[in-house]
């Protein structure tokens, strides 16, 4: 089973491009359909797909704001579905100054969580 921190030969998580600057996706050769995250390299299906790179920006298709139980002490956080021009929809955390909105332009930020685990988020595009 692929762990989300599993790294490719480049040392990057499988959902990052080798240079670590973009999200990686895949296109099925037969159907030309595209998906994120990409099929992991160890999958028996891997040869059916070719790698593609997602751009820096997308638009919010929908969103919600999760309100953790007050006893948890955690702050609300926003989640979005972001539609990329490369015809891929990605789910992720939105970190912006305000509430997300449908149709809003967002930018991908690739970084690390507090734990140090690699992660991606979306922020308002300027």
């Amino acid at each position, binding site marked *: *089973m*692929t*762990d*989300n921190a599993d790294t490719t030969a480049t040392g990057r998580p*499988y*959902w990052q491009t080798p240079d670590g600057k973009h999200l990686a996706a895949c296109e099925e050769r037969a159907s030309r*359909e*595209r*998906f994120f*995250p990409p099929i*992991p390299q160890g999958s028996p299906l891997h040869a059916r797909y070719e790698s593609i790179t997602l751009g820096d920006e997308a638009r919010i*298709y*929908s*969103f*919600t*704001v*999760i*309100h953790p139980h*007050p006893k948890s002490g955690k702050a*609300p*956080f926003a*989640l979005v*579905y972001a*539609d*990329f021009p490369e*015809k*891929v*929809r990605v*789910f*992720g*955390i939105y970190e912006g100054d305000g509430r997300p909105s*449908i149709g809003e332009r967002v930018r991908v930020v690739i970084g690390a969580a507090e734990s140090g*685990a690699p*992660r991606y988020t979306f922020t308002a595009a300027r």
Partner: protein
Amino acid sequence: MKDIYISGVAMTRFGKHDQASMQDLAQEAVLGAVADASETLDNVEAFYCGNVFGGMILGQVLLRDLALAGVPVYNIENACASGASAVHLAMHALRAGVYETVVVFGVEQLTKLGGGTIPLQLNDYKTGLYAEQGMVLPAVYAMRGTRYLHEHGVTSEVLAKVAVKNRYNGSLNPYAQTRKETTVDEVLGSRMIADPLTLLQCCPSAVDGSAALVLTTRKPQGRHAPVRIIGSVVQSGIREQHDDDILDAEITARAARLAYRQAGIGPSEVDVVELHDAFTIAELIYYEALGLCAPGEGAALLESGETSLSGRIPVSPSGGLLAKGHPLGATGVAQMTEIVWQLQRRAGDRQITKHARIGLAQCTGGGIAGVDHAASSVHILSL
């Protein structure tokens, strides 16, 4: 093709059963259904057990003390569609003539999980990655809610009205977990879970219960009008595309079309519906997916009152998952139990006004990323 009858039904009250074990719950439902069918356990040739979190060989464990004569016990898991899937598989065997009479039961004891959101299936790189991002089932439905309000220009008030309707129905149902009516203000004022879904717009996650049916190819001769299953479908989710409309409930619409075709009817002939209202937005979306109204008209259908107990097409007369509760493995079987009671006019204070001839039960099993839902099941029952 052989007619498949539901000759007996029973369910436990759905709620927190601190003093009851899962065995107690399952046996209560099974014995109740067998008695309702005026049958004996000796005549039951196989048992089908729908469950999600109970562990391996659950059916055998739960039925052991009934001292059955070694008949087959099958354990079926399809998330929230487990019970309905169990009915579907039982029907295969009955139609093939392998058995004449079987019992299907569903059971779940979610209070043992400690509460909170239902765990996702993490044997999947995509679900695992998204779960790390914060994907939980309420979030998936909440984003449908956000999109619905945006596209149709309605407010959260219409979502709250689903909860108000179903909580009213639940107040009349002695088997429901939540038997207290509510108001739009109370629903909208309850704690926000995943915007726009507040607490009272989400089915409770701490609930236990069981339901059972006796299925047979012998036409029942009892005092109640015989109920047949005339449509039974299970479908799996199709890999999501980048431009999917998250409001079209594709898997449910597909399962419903197949069920209608099997039954030889259309949506307009359905008299009563139990559907998968795990969250308020789900009921509106499923109105459309089941063809009870045109696309985009779900909110209007609710506002018209036609889905109330006295309406043209009562939906969730039991109180639905929102009020009755949603012990996952039991839900599909409990939905059909309610439909049988409604068709046979045994539903007590919540009996729908119209004399129903055809009922529909729909449930979906989710829990993974990349598909609308993992499983959807639609059953159509008829006098």
